[in-house]
């Protein structure tokens, strides 16, 4: 069936080479893929896998130092590998469209939205006499309300989601037969991401446009595409029908991806030790045991859970404290920012509104919310870096909002942060040794010799070789930097670690690795985590309790299992629904 249909895009044995200061680097090797008319194909891979480069080559948009060094790109039966500039310009826009990744930087800030849509139509000879109406139509199609007015605005007057809609409008304005969508939603909040992908989906289905979707998210890819192409280090390691690859991955790399994708896991991470204990306890009680539960929780017999709690190694809890005792208690926390308006008038903005929760020692509390939910402001206040407008934060029984001088200094020793951006959280001028030693030095702990010993221990704890200590942050990858940040946070033997989007910037596999590390450390050291994230999938893996925030307020708070199996609020349900691929593995 369908074998007589000609492929729309065919890439054969493609090789792409970049000329760099250190000689030529082959970014893509032997890549091959086929897109049939009207079909959605997703290229999945981590950063640096060559997925974007491959797609950009198809539309002749490689950076100036890169070029096709082998293979063929065939569009609609025509070999365009070495097509003239003129021919490529003809194809762009009305035959091959593009929706780029970052909505913030892909619209020209000095031109109005309408102008940028209109010039697309004009360049492809589709403007006609009533171009104004056409522009409004195209924008409306992409889901932008009030398009005629919006067309007269500049990009900075749009929110991220609206900009992405404008970019989709531009990409599809000339009805291309192929749309290259390069991570079209990864910069957006999950619920917005969901809406935009849904919209893109229905539009391309309606228009019969084939889509080449580039994404790092396996779940998202499987949900939106008929066909997956998995890339790793510049090569295609596996390709085939989306659901088949997801359920039955063959290549070890794909298996790794499927196993680590947080959107597909549905169980809190547990270390081997805890699993053994769980198994032992369950066996004692005569209940059936799932040896390594990866799929679907929530139906685990509650007896096993109870048993697991008993089996938890009490001795590992720090300072002999009881598990379950509240270590961090936040009550009626409110933060009001004054926004400077015109002529010195200022308006109040409630970033955090009457937030209360408490975190038992040795557990993980996740605060989940989208941008603007106030979750990071809560973290800042919990770290005593920002004074709350109202409310109290009790750490181990004492209110920390009013702490000053020595008591504050002591508090800092017991509560440590890990931040989101692994490129920003380490001082680029400090080598790793100085970075990890800094907290010890500030708190005047030990002498040079004992500090060096401690740094070695800490590096070992986060599975980094001791030789790393002479290196500088710019020599390490994102995941490695985040492990260094963890080591620094551990240096003072804190009770609580506040992770502000600590794994959001990392690739899936690295993210899984860091989450496992955090989990292991929690068990070994009895740490308490306050985990701030926008990603419910991650929450499932690491948290015991969840607080869902929206626009500064707490929407829902319960145990993780409760929230996932029985969300009470519409907003929580929306968030859960928006996890890509959540429903595919059932």
């Amino acid at each position, binding site marked *: 069936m369908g074998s007589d249909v000609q492929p729309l895009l065919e890439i054969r044995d493609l090789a792409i080479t970049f000329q760099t200061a250190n000689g030529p680097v082959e970014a893509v090797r032997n890549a091959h893929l086929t897109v049939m008319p009207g079909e959605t194909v997703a290229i999945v891979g981590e950063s640096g896998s060559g997925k974007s480069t491959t797609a950009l080559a198809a*539309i002749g*948009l490689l*950076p100036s130092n890169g070029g096709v060094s082998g293979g063929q790109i065939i569009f609609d039966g025509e070999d365009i590998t070495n097509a003239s*500039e003129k021919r490529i*310009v*003809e*194809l*762009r*826009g*009305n035959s091959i*469209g*593009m929706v*780029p990744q*970052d909505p913030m*930087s*892909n*619209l*020209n*800030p*000095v*031109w109005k939205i309408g102008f940028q849509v209109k*010039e*697309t139509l004009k*360049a*492809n000879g589709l403007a006609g006499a009533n171009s104004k109406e056409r522009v409004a139509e195209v924008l409306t199609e992409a889901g932008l309300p009030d398009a005629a007015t919006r067309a007269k605005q*500049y990009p*900075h*007057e749009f929110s991220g989601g609206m900009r992405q809609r404008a*970019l989709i409008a*531009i*990409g599809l304005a*000339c009805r291309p037969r192929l749309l290259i969508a390069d991570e079209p939603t990864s910069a957006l909040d999950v619920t917005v991401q969901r809406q935009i992908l849904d919209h893109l989906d229905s539009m391309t289905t309606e228009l019969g446009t084939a889509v080449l979707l580039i994404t790092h998210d396996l779940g998202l890819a499987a949900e939106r595409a008929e066909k997956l192409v998995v890339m790793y280090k510049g090569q295609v390691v596996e390709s085939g029908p989306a659901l088949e690859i997801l359920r039955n991955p063959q290549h070890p790399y794909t298996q790794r991806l499927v196993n680590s994708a947080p959107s597909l896991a549905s169980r809190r991470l547990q270390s081997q030790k805890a699993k053994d204990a769980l198994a032992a306890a369950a066996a004692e009680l005569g209940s059936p045991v799932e040896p390594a539960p990866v799929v679907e929780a929530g139906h685990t017999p509650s007896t096993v859970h109870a048993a697991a709690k008993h089996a938890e190694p009490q001795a590992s809890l720090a300072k002999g404290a009881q598990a379950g005792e509240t270590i961090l208690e936040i009550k009626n926390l409110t933060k009001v920012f004054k926004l400077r308006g*015109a*002529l010195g008038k200022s308006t109040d903005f409630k970033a955090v509104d009457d937030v209360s929760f408490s975190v038992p020692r040795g557990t993980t509390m996740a605060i989940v919310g989208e941008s603007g939910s106030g979750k990071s402001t809560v973290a800042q206040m919990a770290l005593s870096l920002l004074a709350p407008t109202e409310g109290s934060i009790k750490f181990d029984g004492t209110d920390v909002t009013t702490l000053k001088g020595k008591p504050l200094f002591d508090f800092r020793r017991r509560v440590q942060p890990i931040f989101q951006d692994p490129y920003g959280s380490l001082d680029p001028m400090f080598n790793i040794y100085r970075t990890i030693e800094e907290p010890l030095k500030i708190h005047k702990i030990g002498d040079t010799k004992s500090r060096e010993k401690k740094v070695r221990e800490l590096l070992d704890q986060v599975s980094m070789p001791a030789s790393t200590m002479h290196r500088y942050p710019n020599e390490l990858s994102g995941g490695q930097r985040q492990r260094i940040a963890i080591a620094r946070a551990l240096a003072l033997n804190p009770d609580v670690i506040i992770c502000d989007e600590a794994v959001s910037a990392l690739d899936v596999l690295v993210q899984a690795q860091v989450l496992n590390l955090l989990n292991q450390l929690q068990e070994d050291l009895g740490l308490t985590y306050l985990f701030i994230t926008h990603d419910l999938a991650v929450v499932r893996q690491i948290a015991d309790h969840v607080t869902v925030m929206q626009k500064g307020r707490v929407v829902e708070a319960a145990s993780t299992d409760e929230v996932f199996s029985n969300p009470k609020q519409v907003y929580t349900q929306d968030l859960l629904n928006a996890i890509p691929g959540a429903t595919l593995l059932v």
Partner: protein
Amino acid sequence: MLMFTFRRFLQLIPVFFGATLLVYFLVFATPGDPIAALSGGKPMAPAVEAALRAQYNLDQPFWVQYGLYLKNLVTLNLGQTFSGQDVSAVIARAYPVTARLAIMALTFEAVFGILFGVIAGLRKGKFFDSTVLVASLVVIAVPTFVLGFVLQLVVGVKLGWARPTVSGSAPWNELILPALVLGLVSLAYVIRLTRTSVGENMNADYVRTATAKGLSRRRVVVVHILRNSLIPVVTFLGADLGSLMGGAIVTEGIFNVPGIGNLLYKAIQKGESATVVAVVGILVIVFVVANLVVDLLYAWLDPRIRYV
């Protein structure tokens, strides 16, 4: 935009008072007799001294003096030169010449600076780019007065293509050479700025997106690269016009252009501090206004600024 203009205008007020106060303070509150300062330390006729005392209200307390100085500045009541001419009349005569020279220099640096800068930026690393870059470095490194002397000597005296010095009425054609000298250093800066800016914008995401839309290379360059790259350049040119309008002391001195800079130059050489203070006071106003114009220009070019 109106709001923005108004706010910028408000911000200028402290700058205006601060800068005039600074000038006034430097002259009148530094050690020594202010009369001696104003006369350049030379003995002078009692009548002149009395006129100076009256002009600068030296028998009044400092703040009153300053207030009256400001009032005089704004009403262009600037006193007299030692030879008895009205300073405001002298300035009024010199200003058109300076303005003419400034406009010529600005046109020169804008046209050639942007042209060379854009070509160099689009062909980064190529021969044209390297040549222009080295030439601009040399121009920046050679002081204006050396350039002025050399060009005066070569073009004016040796080759005889232009008058080495400008005649009293300062017609356009005689101002060409001084305008070139005056614009040359800024030309180098405009080239470098344009080049960097074009280079940066070429790699911007929105330029790639514009290409992906199917626009021709030419349109991408003109509409998307050029417009964005010119924002910092136009800002620089605006600021430069301000300083050109302030008179080019050195260039006007070398070519004997009867402009505001030359006025200042002669006043310095004759030790007529009173005239210097009056002229500098006026120039501060020119700079402050020029700054405002640049800010507004910037906001007009870059829609993002207006709402900050």
